[in-house]
């Protein structure tokens, strides 16, 4: 039997299996720790830093930190909330995120987090980078303007033989997601849809799929991000 450890998040007593990642352990205890680059079922990367928490006084990424006995976690405190807000704002100014005309609006995790953290306008100046749309793939359109380089598509999408289809290309500030030319051409409809769903923003779009889900019926129209986890918390109490 797996060992159960006890720890606290913002003073609340929690229990989880030893070694479980903090973000998942928190979820099981009805506490939401926001994430962007993390995706259930794929190995965590800790690259976006949105899940940053304080563990025993030190800043750690909750998606890559295993829980241990007597851990003291600070999640929803002004310092951490402000830090996350800054990170989210940086994502917005670093790319070209024009939510009103984005098919992912209402299903977008970045947008949903901006609503959660009540971001009206970013404090940083917009970078307005020159980014390209790659519309050469027969199934997917890649809009680099919206990519936050979370690598979820690289880590989570493979073809039937387990080969990865997406990869980083270029370097430094010019780094972007590339679609394997040969494998990309053979993408099934199902895999293309999965790629669009796994992308937390609107950087990967299934061709000709636009706005067929009405406003009000999209994922975060129904329930704000994290509320499903927090509701569980309320009901369990």
């Amino acid at each position, binding site marked *: 039997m797996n060992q159960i450890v006890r720890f606290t998040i913002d003073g609340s007593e929690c229990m989880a299996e030893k070694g479980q990642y903090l973000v998942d352990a928190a979820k099981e205890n009805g506490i939401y720790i926001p994430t962007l680059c993390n995706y259930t079922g794929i190995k965590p990367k800790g690259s976006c830093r949105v899940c940053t928490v304080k563990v025993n006084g030190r800043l750690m990424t909750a998606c890559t930190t295993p829980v241990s006995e007597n851990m003291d976690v600070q999640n929803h405190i002004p310092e951490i909330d402000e830090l996350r807000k800054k990170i989210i704002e940086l994502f917005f100014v670093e790319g070209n995120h024009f939510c009103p*005309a*984005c098919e992912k609006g209402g299903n977008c995790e970045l947008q949903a987090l901006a609503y959660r953290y009540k971001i009206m306008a970013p404090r940083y100046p917009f970078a307005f980078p020159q980014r390209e749309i790659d519309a050469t793939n027969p199934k997917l*359109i890649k809009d680099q303007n919206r990519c936050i380089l979370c690598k979820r598509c690289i880590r989570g999408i493979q073809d039937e033989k387990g080969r990865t289809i997406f990869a980083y290309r270029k370097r430094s500030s010019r780094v972007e997601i590339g679609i394997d030319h040969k494998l990309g051409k053979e993408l099934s409809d199902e895999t293309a849809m999965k790629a669009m769903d796994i992308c937390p923003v609107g950087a990967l779009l299934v061709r*000709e799929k*636009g*706005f*067929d*889900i*009405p*406003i009000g019926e999209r994922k975060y129209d129904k329930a704000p991000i994290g509320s499903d986890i927090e509701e569980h918390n309320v009901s369990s109490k």
Partner: protein
Amino acid sequence: MGQKITIEPVTRVEGHGKVTIHIDNDGKVNQTRLHIVEFRGFERFVQGRPYWEAPVLVQRLCGICPVSHHLAAAKALDVIVGAGTGQGLTPTGEKMRRLMHYGQIFQSHSLHFFHLASPDLLFGIDSNPLTRNIIGVALANKDLAVQGVMMRKFGQEIIEATAGKKIHGTGAIPGGINKHLSAGDKEKFLNGKDPMNIDNMISWAQDALEFFKDYHTKNKAIIDQFIDFPSSYLSLVRKDGALDLYHGVLRAVDTDGKIILHDVDYQNYLKYIDEEVRSWSYMKFPYLKEMGKSAGWYTVGPLARMNTAEFIDTPLAQKEFELFKSYNNGKPSNKPMHMHWARLIEILHSAEKMKELLNDNDLLEGELVTKGTKKNEGIGLIEAPRGTLFHHYKINDSDQITMCNLIVSTTNNNQPMNEAVNQVAVREMNDQKEISEGMMNAVEVAIRAYDPCLSCATHALGQMPLEITLVDHKNKIIDKKRNR
């Protein structure tokens, strides 16, 4: 001493414009121009975007009648996805879009009549500007102001029920619509508690018409004589000649009512219409090619629609249409102040149409989208509140927009507005040593009759104070007044 008068910006219109009036050494107005001084870039920055984004992207031109842009773009994309033009959609697709559009016409016209135009009618063109506004209307005639607000609200709620949001929704998609009307919304609009139900809206629309007709009887000078000049008129009409705000063929009549553009398919609009660029305005000047740049200009909007249509297919509006036609002896009305009258007839027509549609079960069930053989080019036209709106797109084989051309309603009315401004300026300001606030407002009343959406035509931002500058022929400022 020659003078140049500048009215900048023009108030109680949507957007930002200015008027310059040149007065020669003898005190005569020798040139008047309505300048649109802001720049729009939508045609350029939709290039490269996937085509299905156009209806939600381009509607951001404006917050007053985004539905018109949303639907015109969707109609153009219907052609691209092979759903045909206008009537190619499923019954649900077309009827939901129509309901959205009538809601839009209803709210936009109500906004214009009650909020923007009624202060001039209630208080007089040269009345105190401090009370000549919607707050003044609310204080002087509470019922009228409340009706205006509630009618707008009703129209906005129809839009929300069909497009998902009151402003900038996503209802129309290439080849159809993305939702049905809910049974709850249908019940609310048909049988909601007074005053928010369709029967009451029809009744209020009739009241507004009665208010106008009563005003007209008592103020013929303003409505009939304030502005009057010959113009051609252009709009969509249904194939049988009925007023149709959503779809039809393109018809133009001259000042006497003779048809000069014979019910043509708007997919060929470039054969008939061209646009001229003039150095002093960011707004282009469209004209009918056959008649040339100087004579080919035309008016669009509610007045044009009354002048091109042969009848209206809803009974109450048809009665009002007959009155309108008989008052003008069956000929086109060349009086831009009749635009208010025409607008009110269209409010009534839209309300009747909404009632008809709300009782139609196709809105509650049925296929939403239809598609066929894809094309690389599509054109969508619609009768927006302010007149005929043209959207034209080309796409490449990768589904990206390569070309976009928009001829916005207000752009079509560019020359007529200049004509109207000139006529009023000449009459009011010739031989006048001092320019009063009332004279300035008279010029604006002429512009306001067209309900121009300058932000739509040019994408403007900013405050809208009124400023007038008098300069002599050496450009030396001799007087400056500023108002709000």
